[in-house]
Structure formats: C-alpha cells, structure tokens
C-alpha cells in the first residue's frame, strides 16, 4: 500500500469520491436544485475524465485480484467520456426528475462495478464487478417512475440478468471444479481444448457474456429494456455497459482461454453471423427509434465479435477504436433522441418527418451519427467497421466476411429510413424549432467531432495501437 495503490486505482477512487460527494449533497443539501447539481456533477465528471488520462501504469493489487495497465486505463477513460456525455445530455430530462442525485449515484456505482470488472484478475472479482454493475442498472431502467414501461424494463432486466448470471456462475463452478483456481494467470495454462468439461464451462461463461452483449439468441431483453428505460439509461446500456463487457471479454478470451482459440473463434463467428442477421431482421420494420437502436446495437456488437476473431493486438485495438467511434455516434444520436423525447415525448421514427425543416443542426447530427453507425464514409464508423472486418480478414474466413459485408447493406436500409424521414418525408406539423442548452451543444459537438475526425485523422488509432 503506497502511492502505487492510489495510482493504480485512481479511476475507481475518483468515482468513489464523486459518489461520496453526491451522498453528502443528498444528506446535507437536499434543497440543491437539479440545475446546480447538474453543473457540479458535470464538472466533477470532467475532472474524473482528466484524472483517467493521468499516469496510466501497469500493476497488480490484492494478490492479482485487481490489475491494470495502460490499455485498461484507456478503456476506462472511454467509459468516463461516455458517462460525461450522457450526463451532459440529460439536462432536459433532469427537469422532470425529483431524485436526480440518486440517478447519478446509481449511474456512478454501476460504472464503478464495471471498472472493477474490467480490472479483475480473478473470476471472483469479475463476478463481483459484474453484479455491482448490473443491479443499479436495473434500478436505473425503472427510473421513470410514472411510466409503466420503465418499471417493466427494470423487472425484465433484473430477471434476465439473474438468469444469465446463474448460467455464468454454473460455468465458473465447473471451471473451478476442473482446474481448482479462478485466477486468470493460473487458469490459462491449465485449459486445453481436449477437455469436454472445460469446453462446456467455456460455453456457459461465454453465454453469460453473450447475454450482456445482447447477442442473438440471448438478446430478447434488449428491445424491451431499451424501449422502457429513460433515454439516458438506454444510451448507457447500449454503449457503456456493452463496452465494459467487451473489454473484459477480450482479456478473458485472449489470455485465459487462449488455448481454446479454435473453439472461441468458431463460437464468435457463429454468434456474430446469427446476431447481425437476426438483429437486422428485427430492426428492419421497427417504428420506435429506441427499439430500432436496440437492434442496431445488437448488430454493432456482432461486428465487434467479428473483430475479436482476429485474436491479437490488431483486433484488440480495432475493437477499442470501434467502441470509441460507436460511443461517439451512438451518443450523438441518443443526445438528440433524448432531448426530443424529454421535451416533446416523441419517440417514433414517424415523428421525425420533416425534422430538417425545423431543426437543421440536430438533423445533421442525427444523419452523421446514423451514417457512422451504418459505416458510410467519411464518418469514423466506416473506418471502425472496416478495421474490424480487415482484422478478421487476416484470418481469411471468407464466409464470415461475406455475411458481415452483406449485412452492412441490410442495416443501411433501416438507418436510411430514419434519414428519409428527416430529410425527405413531408410533414404538416414537424417537431418545432427549439433552442438547445449549451450542455447539449457541448456533448453533441464532442460526438460529431469524434464522428468526423476519428477516422480521417489516424492519430487516435495509432495511439491505441501503441498502448499495447
């Protein structure tokens, strides 16, 4: 325990500090207005983001239970950025809330759980983090107290999570039975693809991950929960929560189960193909924009799986890069959707008809974000997606590439449906022209800058690649 401790756990500590600040406020300054709370928290989150970038070093704590390195540090920073953006976008929604501080508390504690999960060096620690991140999420999902759908979402999330946790735990226990340890470093050499039981354990554990990533057929909760939850929570679920799982999945696959490479390569490929195909099929005819985004997130996750199949640094950095881009594009989109939803209570695609006539700025933001999601140049999404596919291509699995490429076309259809509504369709009474709060401008600006710059300027990718 020395300065090491503080440096290695700085992200977690800084989150904890903000949490404490919030608790103090809740206890001693209950009369604090949402607006000033909003201001305060955002400043804190900005500081938190900055702290995340400072002195990232490699190290282990608690006998290998907790470990971190520059890559994990950067991954946490991405999530920090995400939480800041969500927070910036929730001003309009906060006006409707009585318990805004609780919202932040829940949000931050689930992030804290994710951080622990990402930094875990042992499956026990991993499970602890996972549960710490899941339970507050269920509370967050049902945060819109006056909406039935919101409560339903919370219920569904907690039930489904419990179920998947059970499967995961079952897998873990089998693994422990086989090997006698749950420590990542110790496990890796003990695992071999010949042992059927280990394979079974791997599949069960992987199913747990797949649930979190909402991969078909473990995805059914996604649409209902996304639709019911407050938009900020949906955004959080679709990006931050998924990203954290992907990050730890990378570690688990590339280190713990590296001897099972052939097995998980196939597993990833199969799940990716199924997910993107079905995700697209589900998405084709959705009318609710949040549901649409739910299925789009399933497809995007499938592309991440494609990238992971590469199995080395190239794939890893492509995945991180893609997540960063995905974060920017999805948050740009959710920023607009959450604003419109909070202000006008409109969430259908049809509501956006003629949007361009009244809100050109928001329209361009949405369209750029949609193009980025669809992987259209010059947006960063194009680069992200292509890098994932290119990584996979170095393995030469033609079938996987074919499916992935063709699915990009199918997904274009439903993204273009939204673009069509915004730009082409005529509407008698479109969503009115509205002045935007500065915070929204800020967050959308960051997102759009990311969407436009991350691809064309190679610096960020080089940075990620060099972290390893």
């Amino acid at each position: 325990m020395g300065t090491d401790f503080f440096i290695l756990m700085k992200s977690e500590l800084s989150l904890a500090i903000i949490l404490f600040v919030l608790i103090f406020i809740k206890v001693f300054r209950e009369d604090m207005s949402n607006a000033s709370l909003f201001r305060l928290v955002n400043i804190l989150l900005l500081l938190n983001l900055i702290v995340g970038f400072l002195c990232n070093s490699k190290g282990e704590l608690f006998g290998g239970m907790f470990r971190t390195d520059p890559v994990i540090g950067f991954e946490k920073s991405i999530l920090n950025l995400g939480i800041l953006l969500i927070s910036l976008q929730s001003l309009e929604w906060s006006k409707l809330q009585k318990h805004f501080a609780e919202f932040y508390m829940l949000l931050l504690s689930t992030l804290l759980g994710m951080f622990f999960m990402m930094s875990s060096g042992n499956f026990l620690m991993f499970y602890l983090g996972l549960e710490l991140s899941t339970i507050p999420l269920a509370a967050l999902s049902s945060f819109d107290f006056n909406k039935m759908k919101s409560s339903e979402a919370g219920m569904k999330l907690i039930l489904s999570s419990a179920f998947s946790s059970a499967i995961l735990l079952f897998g873990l226990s089998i693994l422990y039975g086989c090997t006698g340890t749950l420590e990542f470093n110790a496990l890796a050499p003990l695992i071999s693809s010949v042992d059927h039981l280990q394979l079974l354990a791997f599949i069960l554990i992987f199913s747990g991950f797949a649930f979190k990533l909402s991969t078909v057929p473990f995805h059914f909760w996604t649409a209902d929960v996304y639709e019911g939850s407050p938009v900020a929570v949906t955004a959080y679920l679709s990006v931050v929560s998924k990203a954290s799982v992907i990050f730890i999945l990378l570690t688990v696959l590339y280190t713990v189960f590296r001897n099972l490479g052939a097995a998980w390569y196939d597993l990833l490929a199969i799940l990716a193909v199924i997910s993107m195909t079905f995700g697209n099929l589900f998405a084709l005819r959705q009318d609710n924009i949040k549901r649409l985004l739910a299925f789009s997130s399933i497809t995007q996750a499938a592309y991440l799986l494609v990238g992971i199949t590469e199995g080395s640094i190239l794939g890893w950095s492509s995945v991180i890069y893609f997540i960063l881009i995905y974060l920017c594009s999805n948050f740009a989109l959710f920023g607009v959707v959450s604003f419109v939803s909070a202000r006008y209570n409109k969430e259908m695609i049809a509501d956006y008809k003629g949007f361009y006539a009244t809100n050109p700025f928001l329209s361009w933001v949405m369209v750029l974000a949609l193009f980025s999601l669809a992987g259209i140049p010059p947006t960063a999404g194009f680069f992200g997606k292509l890098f994932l596919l290119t990584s996979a291509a170095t393995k030469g699995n033609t079938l996987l590439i074919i499916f992935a490429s063709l699915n990009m076309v199918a997904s274009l259809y439903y993204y273009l449906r939204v673009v069509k509504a915004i730009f082409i369709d005529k509407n008698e009474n479109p969503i009115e022209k509205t002045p935007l709060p500065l915070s929204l401008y800020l967050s959308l600006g960051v997102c759009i800058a990311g969407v436009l710059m991350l691809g064309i300027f190679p610096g960020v990718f080089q940075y990620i690649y060099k972290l390893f």
Partner: protein
Amino acid sequence: MLSATYIALIPLLPLASFLLIGLLGKRYLKMASGPIGTLSLLLSCALACITAFQYFFQAGRVNGVFEKITVFKFAWLNFSPNVSIDMGLVLDPISVMMILVVTLIALMVHIYSLSYMKGEERVSTYFSFLSLFTFSMLGLVLASNIFQMYIFWELVGLSSYLLIGFYFDKPSAVAAAKKAFIVTRFADLGFLIGILILSFHAETLDFTTLISRLSTPGSPWLLSISSASFMGFSLLTWGLVLLFVGGAGKSAMFPLHIWLPDAMEGPTPVSALIHAATMVVAGVFMVARMFPVYALSCPAALQVVAWTGAISSLFAALIACTQTDIKRVLAYSTMSQIGYMMFALGVSGYGGENGLGYTASLFHLFTHALFKALLFLGAGAVIHYVHSNELSKMGGLRKHIPITHITFLVACLAIAGVPPFSGFFSKEEILMASYQHNFPIYCIALFTAGLTAFYMFRLYFSIFWKKELSADSHAHGEGGFAMMFPLVLLALFTLGAGFIPFGKFISSDGLPLTSEVHLGFSLIPVLLSLCGIFMAMAFYKKESTLPDKAATVLGELYKASFNKFKIDEVWLKVTKGFLFGIVGRFAAWFDKSIINGAIDLGASFAEVVSDTVRMLQTGKVQDYAACVLAGVLSLCLYFLYVWM
C-alpha cells in the same frame, strides 16, 4: 502540280461553309447563307476541275497507267501498330471523276436552290446541310482508308437524314427520314462487319495496301482469309458480300431499297443531289473501289453483285410503270439505273477488254448523274409550278414552262437510251458487257431498257401533254434564272457527255480502254426503247382509257406493281411486328416483371421474414429465458458433437 493544299480545300470549303452557316447562319447570315454556300461550292468545283485536268492529263499517268496518288494522310486513330484509321485524300481515276460529278451537281443544286428555296424560313439550315452533305460525299470519294470511307459513309447518311426530314413538321417527312437512316444503318452494319473481316486478315485498313494484299494471288493475307471459312463460304466471300450489303443499302438495291421512294419527302433539289446523282451511287463507287479484290479473288461475291443489280433494275422498272407520284417514279428509275451500274460491275472482269463492264458502269454513273439530276430539277420546276407531286394534277404544261419541257425531254431521251444522248452510250456499253459475260442478265437488261423508255415517257407525256390547261390557271411563270440555268447547263452536258472517250480515262486496270459502238448490236435496244416510247405516247399523249384497260388486262401484276410488291409491308412485319412487338416488348416486360420484380420480391421477402422474426419477441421474460436456455444448449450440443 497536284498540291495537297488545294486538293484538301475541295472538301474543306464546303465544311467551312457548313460550320459558318450552321453556327451563325440563323441569326446573322440568313440572307447570305445561300450565296456563301454556292460560292464555296463554286470554288470547290473549280478546284475539282483543275485537279481533274491535272490528274488526267498531266500527273496521273505513270507509264501509261493511271496510278493511285495519295495526296496526304495522317493517322487519325490507331488501333494496333499496323491497323489505324488514316484520314487522307487519294486521287485515282474514279475518285477524280467522282469529285467532278459531286461538285458539279452540288453546284447546280446550290444555284437552283437559291431560287427554289427562296422565302423558306430555315434557308440557312438548308444550305448548311447541303454543305455538310457535299463535304461528306467528297470525303467519301477521296477516302484513302476503308474506315475513312465508312466514316463519311455514315456522315452522308446523316446529311441525307437531315435533308429528307427538312420539313420536320410534316410527319411523313420525319418518318421517311427515319426510315432512310435506319435502313441504311442496318445495311451499314454489313459494311462494318465486312471491314472487320477484311481488315483482320489483311492487317490494314488502307485501301491501297488492302487491295494489293487481297488481290495478289498467293499472298499470305489472301491465303489466310480465303482458307478461313464460315458456314461453307470463305471469309473473303463473307467479307466482300457484307461490304456489298452496305453498298446495296446506300444504293437502294433490292430488298433494301424501301427507303429511297420515301426519301422523296425531302426538298426536290435535295433529291436531285443526294438521292439521284451522288449519295445513292456510293454503293457502286465502293464496289468499284474494291473491284480488284472482287474480280480477282472472289468471283462469287461479284456474282452476288451482278444478280442483285439485275433484279433491282428490273424490279424497280416494273414498279415505276405504275406509280403516280412524279418524284417516286424518278426514284424507282434511279434505283433501276443503279441496278444497271451494279450488274455492269458484276459481270465485268478485270483488265483489258474484260473490264468493259467496269468502265461502262462508271460511265453510266457519270451520265446518269447528269441526266437524273436534270430530271429531278425539272421535276422540281414542275412541282414548283403546279404545287403538287401527283401526275393527275399535271398535264399540258409544255407551253407554260417551255425550258423545263425541253430539258426534261432531253433527259428522258437520254435515260431511254436514244442516240445520241449520253445515256445511249453508257447503256450500250453496259449491255455489251453483259452480253459478253452473262446472257441472262443481258436479257433482263434489255427488257428493263424497254420498260425504262416506257415509264419515262409515260411521265413525260403525262406532265407535258395529256390534257390542255387554260393559260391563266397558273399566273406565275417558270422559275427564275437561277432555276433555269442549271437545267440548261445540265441538258447541254447530257447532250455532250456521251462523246467523252470514257474508257481512256477510267478502266479496271488503269490502262486506256477503247470501246466502240457497234451499230448492229445497238439496234435491238434502241428499237426496244423506241417501242417503249411509242407505247407511252399511245397511252398517255392524250387522255384515253387505254391505261385502265391495260391495267385490267394485267390484273394482279398491275396491282402488285402498284403496291410496290408489298416489300415495305414485309419489312414492317419483321421490324414492327417481330423486333419491336415481340423482342422489344419481351425485353421491357422481362425487365419490369422479372428483374425488377426479383429485386422488389427480395425486399418484400425481407420484410415478411422480418415481421415473422419479430413475432419471437413476445414480451414475456419466461420466453426469453427459454430462448437463452435453448441457445446455450444448442451451442453446447454443437460444440460437443459437431465441432469436436
């Protein structure tokens, strides 16, 4: 001596006038466009005369043989190292003769048009098109490269299209222009493929090289092309026949003649220039140009030429006897006369006395150009006077338009082959050549000659005699000087041209060929012609019932001739009925229903599947859990049983 500069000016002057009038005419030079066009043609004609003089009397003959002189050429488009389209000018007896004919007739038509087209709103357009045509035709005859010929071949087709459709607000004119272009284009397809075949084996597109390679016995190129065969014929035969198909299209040979009568929708001077004297003989010119190859290497193809020509000449003459539109009669007579030229080439051999048909054919081309232009211009004057094309509206005009009458008569006598008019000499040579080489064709020719005399004088008598008109019915007189001058000049040429010793200048091998008129031989054709004339006189000099009676006697034959043997209808069936109606409609239907349908079906299929898949999303957590479990189980099963 022969200088490239001024020879190049012969085609370039009309081009310049086309560009000038075409671009600026409508706005700035409306009044001046006629004179500008005429002036450029005058210069061009003068240069052509000088060139002809120099070529025939000074520079052309080397060791007693007329040589091909390539005045200049440059590579215009390279295909492969050996094969390129060169743009160039080549002088040889036939091209020099042709530039004379083209510039002369064009000049006459220009002068004539100055008066004929006066008051026309789009007069500048008219003259620019005329210039374009003259340029293209000169480019065609001077071509040094077979592809260059094809290029200008297409361009004359274009000018013909534009001029036929000059009165474009008349639907019939538009249809006729379209028909002319498409039919000739169809024929040109043969020309193009012929070029492809020949050039591939001869490895050149240059006329001089091409001809020498393909007509020298035993040359490797000739061997390669004649040894390759397709459907039983050598590729040489195919190539030459296809080439001829192109020629037959332009020259309105049976069965590709259907465009020519309709082409009379154009202004009459245009008919005189393009559809009588110059463009339509391009096919003859082309066969003459390639003659050594036809005659020396592939007599079979020459047989095709001969019989096509013979059939066309008879066929057209038969139709001409019954038509009532003055210009259409002339059109069919043109077709018939070109048939003469064709079979003259077809029966000809190469070199010396054998080449009489060649000389005769081109001689006839020359004289025909003069008297047929004269006939058309005369007809133009008549139409100008009575404002109708129909024979029934005419009659007794001899006193009203005397100059036209006399010149028309001269031309009729010439075409009927009455001595000493020019047509007599050229026709005589053709008959002689066919008599010597192909007796059946000689018989056809003889019969056609009689028919020609009959229908021409049917025309003559119907216009100028038949009924008497009251003097005051048409107040205005004959056209002005500009219209009469070409008539008179051409009539003089028609009278004198027969005495030119044509064989001295133009023969198949470049050596002078002397031909004489044998009185004994000429007796039969001349008698036949006179018979035809007298018969026409009996039928048509006065109004009588004889023609109707004859028509009833002939019955079906008359009807068939009057309906032009229904060739148009057959073509219409093939194109409208089959190509457009069945193939075209099928393609459009296939595209709309099958291809587009497949795409749309794919889209709706995706939607249906999507709707079905969405049903899986029941909203019940227990169902979701079941799905998760099923997923896990199937993964386990897959990995434990399939994958291992």
